[in-house]
């Protein structure tokens, strides 16, 4: 009888430990941490707007703001913003990269990609400034593993004989997966 009592006691002890562990796991699973998605979406949206609205210092109407530079880089990339300077395509690349580097010092470890393409018009012509790997399909495993924040803005410009044209500018932000900086390129 004493043996059975000892065994019963042991089973009771093990049962209590299992209940205790289960309770701990259940309560820990209920604890929630706040996520910063709303803030990061706001950050991305503000970043795109601030960069597009920024003045470049050029007085040429096609190069006054970064949005103008982007449109110039899309339609007439060889246009010069002043008589002797580089083409607007090169200036757009350098200006956007410069702004993004400043923000990289403030909010570290984010990769970015600016994609400029016509809205509502299927075209092979796109401008990409930043890490081109970010423009991937969500079904791609590597793409799905990184949380991306995508925001868009429209730029309306006239092309050719005063034909209005809407360009779609997309900014994709993603947490940097490695310490190495990605190559910045104008494609």
């Amino acid at each position, binding site marked *: 009888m004493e043996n059975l009592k000892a065994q019963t006691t042991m089973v009771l002890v093990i049962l209590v430990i299992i209940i*205790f562990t289960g309770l701990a796991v259940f*309560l820990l699973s209920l*604890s929630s941490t706040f996520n910063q998605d*709303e803030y990061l979406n*706001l*950050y991305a949206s*503000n970043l795109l707007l601030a960069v597009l609205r920024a*003045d470049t210092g050029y007085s040429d109407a096609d190069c006054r*703001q970064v949005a103008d530079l982007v449109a110039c880089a899309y339609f007439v990339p060889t246009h010069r913003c002043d008589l002797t300077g580089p083409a607007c395509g090169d200036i757009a690349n350098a200006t956007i990269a410069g702004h993004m580097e*400043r923000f990289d010092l403030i909010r570290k470890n984010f990769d970015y990609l600016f994609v400029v393409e016509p809205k509502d018009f299927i075209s092979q012509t796109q401008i990409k400034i930043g890490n081109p790997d970010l423009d991937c399909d969500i079904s791609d495993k590597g793409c799905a593993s990184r949380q991306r924040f995508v925001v868009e803005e429209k730029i309306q410009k006239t092309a050719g004989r005063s034909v209005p044209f809407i360009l779609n500018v997309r900014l994709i932000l993603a947490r940097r997966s490695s310490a190495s900086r990605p190559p910045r390129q104008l494609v």
Partner: protein
Amino acid sequence: MRAQSNMMEYVLMTFFIVIVLIAIIFFLTFFQVFQAGGEQQKALFNRQLFIAKYFLASPLFAEENSVLDDARLTALSEGDGCEELKGILGIDWSAEITVLDDSRRITCTGFNYPDCNYWSYCLQNSIGDNIAGRHSARNQSIVLPVSVFRPAGERTDIGVLKVSVYPPR
């Protein structure tokens, strides 16, 4: 002897169950404290976001959404601007706006406007106020990119809005 042995078993088992119950109570208390800390962090973060959105949308600062007007920023950064803002947004917060123009930081006042690039509101770093000393290690901040419109030069520059919230005393 056998009776005493049986009684000892029950005493030991009871003792053990009491130990387990005390352990469960400690664990639940720790969990509640942990949850409360997490809720406080969440509340502070939501408050920061609210203050940042207010700065971006209020006509007191912004010409249009997310475009701050440097004349309005300068006017409100002087005099009783902080007290007026505390009446709207509460206490224990601060905001800083910096134009990213690669030059050294110059605080905007009525005397040096528009040749300046920095505004601050309700920054708690005066000698007479010990709050910054006590809480500087624990205040949280968020930063957001903003546009700063400068009517004097008719240009729009890129800047940063930093909002900090200090935990309650």
